[in-house]
């Protein structure tokens, strides 16, 4: 390519290149319609909505600038929900990852004939709709005649039933445990995939060198699957931040807002106003604030991973 190409010929060449890939662009149309309408547009529209005082019922949306954000940052319920979303994520992700890793390591054992069956059983809660899990778990945990409380009382562990979902100090942890129970199956599959990338020769080499049992797992396998851990943690964290369906179908954020996470807060202001006027603009502001917080954390994490990789490179080479 010549350095002295004039701009008009550049434009023409660009035009020709675009024209030559017209079939490619046609192929993109259906996908870009979905992507544009239901992913890209909402992301940008939310910022605009967040600057409005708007009930959604009529066209009377009033531009109020950053007023929604000012109010938001002063609302203790917002900060509680915001913090709770991250607390929920920080408590469920490590638990989910460690439990599923242990299960995956056991299921990866060649001696185990029934591992497909076990894998299926662990995976069943993943396939079960959250609304159903909400019902079943509410019944299971009921302080009146619920099977779990009955079992606890029968064993004599406690003298009176625990109100797992009605006790403000207990409710978030109960929900976290159910969340982990439901989703461990997915993380287990990710770990199994990671474990299958460990070459068989490595196990043989361990045998020859006399490295045994848990030492193989700890010193050989773990370092090899660590790169996967970062990806798995990221996927799990994003899913934990979207815990809305489970909380909605079990406690609706209660009792006394003790399990209200960000999405429940947004839903409450936008759609579940119970007689009061919906505040779509205010709810949008909460959504944008939350979304931007997550995105900045994601970017930070990506940068951190890149930094770590760059540092490792000399050793790898």
């Amino acid at each position: 390519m010549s350095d002295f190409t004039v701009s008009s010929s550049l434009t023409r060449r660009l035009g020709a290149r675009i024209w030559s890939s017209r079939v490619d662009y046609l192929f993109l149309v259906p996908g870009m319609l979905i992507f544009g309408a239901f992913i890209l547009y909402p992301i940008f529209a939310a910022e605009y909505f967040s600057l409005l005082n708007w009930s959604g019922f009529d066209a009377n949306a009033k531009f109020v600038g950053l007023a929604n954000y000012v109010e938001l940052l002063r609302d203790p319920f917002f900060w509680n929900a915001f913090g709770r979303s991250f607390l929920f994520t920080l408590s469920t992700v490590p638990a989910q990852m460690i439990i599923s890793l242990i299960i995956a390591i056991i299921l990866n054992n060649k001696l185990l004939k029934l591992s497909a069956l076990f894998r299926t059983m662990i995976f069943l809660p993943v396939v079960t709709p959250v609304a159903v899990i909400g019902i079943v778990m509410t019944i299971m945990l009921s302080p009146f005649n619920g099977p779990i409380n009955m079992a606890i009382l029968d064993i004599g562990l406690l003298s009176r039933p625990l109100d797992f979902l009605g006790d403000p100090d207990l409710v978030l942890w109960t929900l976290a445990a159910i969340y982990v129970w439901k989703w461990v199956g997915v993380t287990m599959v990710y770990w199994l995939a990671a474990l299958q990338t460990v070459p068989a020769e490595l196990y043989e080499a361990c045998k020859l060198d006399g490295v045994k049992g848990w030492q193989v797992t700890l010193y050989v396998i773990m370092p090899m699957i660590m790169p996967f851990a970062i990806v798995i943690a990221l996927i799990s964290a994003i899913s934990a931040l979207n815990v809305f369906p489970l909380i909605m179908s079990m406690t609706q954020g209660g009792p006394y807002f003790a399990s209200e996470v960000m999405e429940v807060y947004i839903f409450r202001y936008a759609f579940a106003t119970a007689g009061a006027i919906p505040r779509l603009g205010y709810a949008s502001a909460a959504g944008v604030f939350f979304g931007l917080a997550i995105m900045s954390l994601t970017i930070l994490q990506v940068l951190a991973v890149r930094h770590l990789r760059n540092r490792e490179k000399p050793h790898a080479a």
Partner: protein
Amino acid sequence: MPHDARVAIRQPALSPRMRRVLISVVLAAVCAVWIYPLLWMISASLKDNAAIFANEGLIPGQPTFENYVRAWKEANIGSYFFNTVFVTVGSVLLVTIASSMMGYVLGRRRFVGRGLIFALIAFTIFVPQGYTIIPIFDLLTRIGLGQSLWGVMLATCGGSFVIFVLLFAGYFSQIPNELEEAAKMDGVSFVKTFWYVMLPLARPIVVTVVVMQTLYAWNDFLLPLVVTLANPSIRTLSVGVYAFRGENFIDWGGMTAASTISILPVVILFLFLQRYFIDGLAGAVKG
């Protein structure tokens, strides 16, 4: 060689056979606890409410299907079921076609704007649903689909769409060029090459996308809840089961029956497709 990697972890004390039995017994116990809530649900759905509250064992003394009849009639499970099937089938078809086409072009072709699309996808991949739900709701209302199943179906396509596109793009980019070139030499058109040559090659990803989108659409809650708030007749199963709960929390038999009905199709589908599904997911993590 994936399966060769599954080598025994050596411990001196027990024979391999004993160890296998021991591990299996422990795992079986863990799995039993794991699926106990679901077994309990099925068991309760076959009992009358008195028997459920009496906390008899897991095997119903006098099994009855009366709960199922009541759930089907009172909770409108029948119509919710067909609403969910409509949303699920429609969105799975649309998403599979659109994401495979987009993934194919992004994974194998070079054109102006490709980098920009990839950048936009990377930017949107971790956006929480709470961030986008209000504009989506507003958009559906504006285009006249605010209170319709078509709206739910279309918007449900957005759920994991970018991840599916990335899956297809990654898979297609690894297929060697020869096949495509051979087809080109034989004068097969671009569209036909995609449809008859490339798409069949990507079957593992197609199955993964079909199963994942089915799970997502069948499970989706926030979107159908928001869209059907003012119109209970177009509720989906998730929302219907949730609403039934609100109205009849005392009827444990009816609720467990309604719940069992709503998990059956996905569980059956999963049991048939699980091999492809788990392998496909595994492939996606590796890639």
